[in-house]
């Protein structure tokens, strides 16, 4: 690495902002995010949203693939337990994510990269808080290096 390259990298790291991929359930968290927007609530602009029909639709592949593609963190947000539009999609998802997170973190991915939350369509404020918290957490961890495929 030349000195110039090194300098530019240091500069890059200083101005680094985490990129977070958010999978939001169409029936709740997506609407919650919308509400946060309509209510003009501030939240960090670091998330990119993928709308999914249900948190149960989120396959673990998506999450690991996101890390592999260089996303610094992932958030999955669905309806509160008991409120799933498809009755139990989020309950299935809850077990799935718990186990996936345990495995992935056991194998060395730092806690904080994979995040999960329940946000209803009426919880615009909660949505903005969740995003803030997740962004904070990922910021502390720094850019993802481990799973990234070079």
């Amino acid at each position, binding site marked *: 690495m030349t000195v110039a390259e090194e300098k530019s990298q240091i500069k890059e790291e200083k101005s680094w902002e985490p990129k977070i991929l958010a999978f939001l359930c169409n029936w709740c968290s997506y609407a919650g995010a919308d509400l946060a927007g309509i209510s003009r609530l501030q939240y960090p602009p670091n998330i990119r949203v993928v709308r999914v029909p249900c948190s149960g639709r989120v396959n673990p592949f998506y999450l690991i*693939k996101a890390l592999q593609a260089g996303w610094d963190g992932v958030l999955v947000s669905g309806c509160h*337990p008991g409120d799933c539009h498809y009755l139990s999609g989020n309950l299935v998802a809850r077990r799935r994510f718990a*186990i996936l997170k345990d495995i992935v*973190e056991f194998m*060395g991915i730092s806690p904080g990269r994979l995040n999960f939350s329940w946000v209803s369509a009426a919880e615009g404020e909660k949505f903005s808080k969740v995003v803030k918290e997740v962004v904070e957490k990922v910021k502390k961890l720094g850019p993802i290096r*481990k*799973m990234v495929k070079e």
Partner: protein
Amino acid sequence: MEKLEKIMQDTAKHFLQEQKVDLIIGYKQGTIPLRTTPCFVTKPEDISQLVWNVCCDHDLTNFLLQPEYKDKKVGIIVKGCDARALVVCMAEGQIERKMVTIIGMPCPGMIDRKRIESELEPKEILVAEITEDQIHLKGKDFEQTLQKDDYIQASCKSCRYNNPPVCDVLIGGQPIELSFNDDLDEKLAELEAKSPDERWTYFTTLLSDCIRCYACRNACPLCYCKECFVDQTQPQWVGKTTNISDIMFYHMIRAFHVAGRCVECGACTRACPMNIDLRLITRKLQNIVKDRYGFEAGLDPNVPPPMGTHTMEDPQEFITEPE
């Protein structure tokens, strides 16, 4: 073990004669020493082919998933781990309990043929004789006696269910208690106490040898999907290279797919041509489902697998809840 072999043969013969089963799936002597091979007995007079010794390490339950055995009444010889794998398949609706007669063997631990062979290299074993606690080997210009307990497979040393937890008949009627020195739990605790970065280094080092041959998946009695995620190309989620990121991806998802189903039979570790020890991962899986859902795989065919069920009260301490 010879005594048990005799009882096993008699029991199997009896089942065939009574027509309780159409066929017995068991082990017979392989063509090379220290090896057994699957054996299918349909006639009572052929029963003497069946053997039972410390080389019966493979799991025969896979055969029951094949279409040709689906509607046959099968008697199957199982060790503790095999019985558990069978139970998982039953709990998942792959095998019907009433079609199978489970002939359980109390397992004393199987021996590690690969290690014996590699230690003797380049000498070739031509004859092997196994007694209660010794292995006598003969080759062209050598003769050697090994202590059986020194060559027990690693996965058998860390085994927790060597006696079939579910079976129709336990051969010999007496469970065997294993007393091998094993430090898998200590090793796991040590690894868990380390930082994520150290664990990442541990696993990337361990798995960097992986050549993605998928022998671990093929050997697994519970990997019965017709199309595995690693073979899917549309879309292709997991890269097919031996880039460490792809390797970790594969092993994370493989672990995820057997979570709550893995019975720690050790077949994956045994099958690996690169000698990668996957036992810390499989032991961790047991602990994860036990801690979270109080579940142990392969103990009861009537209990649904943890990933196939859920409750409102499932633990969710990992959910982000801002104040």
